[in-house]
């Protein structure tokens, strides 16, 4: 029978908390940058200029069709060889996470906008609104409601994806756990505690997503 000893691990609880904080920062940072990138890619895909559509499409497929771990390793180890200067693990990590989630957000945003009936655009134009006024006043407020569940879902995945930064030694939660493990030789306690911490971060988020989804279904 295994002799559980959480005490040894909990002695290093401050390290776990530092890890949680970093995980939170990378999540929020990459989501914020990802929203900006995603919006740009989304409007590029909806643009009437073929070159913009192609550029955005290429970006999206590149990041959606390669594994995130490979992207992280490539940006940290391979990209500096092309550029001729080194990139810190924090910069490489934040950049890749942002671009990765941005490529998925772009698709979510685009789907939300395209789901709005064409009559809405026409009605806005018929009172003389410009394209931008139509977007801001009529299309985007309706699209946000439609895309919210998918957006939250993708963001939940994003929290978990920050753990891959472990591979380039970014001091987020998974990496800190490995540190604690190598100091205490208590992998069962360390990784169990980490799993619980991720769960505590994410469970409220998924509940919010479910809540929105239920509310959406009601108004349909």
């Amino acid at each position, binding site marked *: 029978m295994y002799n559980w000893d959480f005490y040894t691990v909990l002695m290093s609880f401050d390290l776990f908390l530092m890890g949680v904080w970093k995980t939170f920062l990378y999540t929020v940072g990459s989501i914020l940058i990802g929203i900006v990138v995603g919006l740009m890619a989304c409007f590029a895909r909806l643009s009437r200029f073929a070159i913009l559509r192609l550029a955005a499409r290429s970006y999206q497929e590149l990041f959606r069709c390669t594994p995130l771990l490979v992207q992280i390793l490539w940006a940290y180890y391979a990209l500096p060889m092309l550029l001729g200067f080194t990139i810190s693990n924090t910069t490489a990590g934040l950049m890749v996470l942002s671009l990765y989630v941005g490529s998925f957000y772009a698709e979510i945003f685009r789907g939300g906008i395209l789901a709005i009936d064409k009559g809405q655009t026409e009605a806005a134009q018929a009172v003389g*609104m410009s394209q931008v006024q139509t977007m801001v006043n*009529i299309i985007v407020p309706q699209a946000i409601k439609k895309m919210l569940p998918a957006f939250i879902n993708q963001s939940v995945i994003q929290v978990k994806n920050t753990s891959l930064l472990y591979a380039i030694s970014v001091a987020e939660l998974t990496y800190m756990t490995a540190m604690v493990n190598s100091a205490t030789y208590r992998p069962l306690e360390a990784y169990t505690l980490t799993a619980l911490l991720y769960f505590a971060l994410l469970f409220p988020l998924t509940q919010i997503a479910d809540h929105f989804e239920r509310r959406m279904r009601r108004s349909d």
Partner: protein
Amino acid sequence: MTPETPVMELQGLTKAFGKLEVLHDINLSVQPGEVLGIIGPSGSGKSTLIRCMNMLEMPTGGTIVFRNRLVGHRFAGRGEQIGAGELRRNVGMVFQHFNLFPHLSVLDNVTRGPIVVNKEDRATAEAYALDLLEQVGLADKRDAYPSHLSGGQKQRVAIARALAMRPAMLLLDEVTSALDPELVGEVLLVIRGLAEKGMTMVLVTHEMGFAADIASRVLFMESGSIIEQGAPEDILRNPRSDRLRAFLSRFHG
């Protein structure tokens, strides 16, 4: 013809979707206060024509002149030309499927255009919107959302929304076609009221009786051309062309 400036003139207007030309050489002048009814079989180009009149469809050829100003194809005006934006600010439109903004209350549906496009302050816009809602009999619904309204109520809000821009002319595209029969009357009543106040209107309609009753001129279209036009009693009672006769006989049964 009156000596007044026409509200709108179409000269040699054509519209093609790809290689398919759906409007051929349309010439038409709309006088102030005139109520123009457009009738014709489905696919005859009526809706395309009325949608060209506020450039929701960009004409392929010909010109649109709005109150003596040539209208360009861009949103913004250029030199002497006005743009599609200014045209649409001054020409209201009511759609078959209402197209109310579902995320806005009735009052906000009516005021959003004047506030965003004409930069009216909220108080002014709301005061006028309430006047208009009163006129269409829906002042008590000001805080309701479109999903809680009947079809007839939605269409009356849509009319108020178009009027809130103080348009020089109103385009009505089969505005009763999506309504349950018992709700058609309340919408027609509002339109009749507008006609009596001298609002210039162009309406595409399948309500022959209503067209005969309210229109000052009726225009029969088929296959993208205006086949016949004139006073409603002449057009509807004494059709000259075989095609109009055939079309009307389907209505009279």
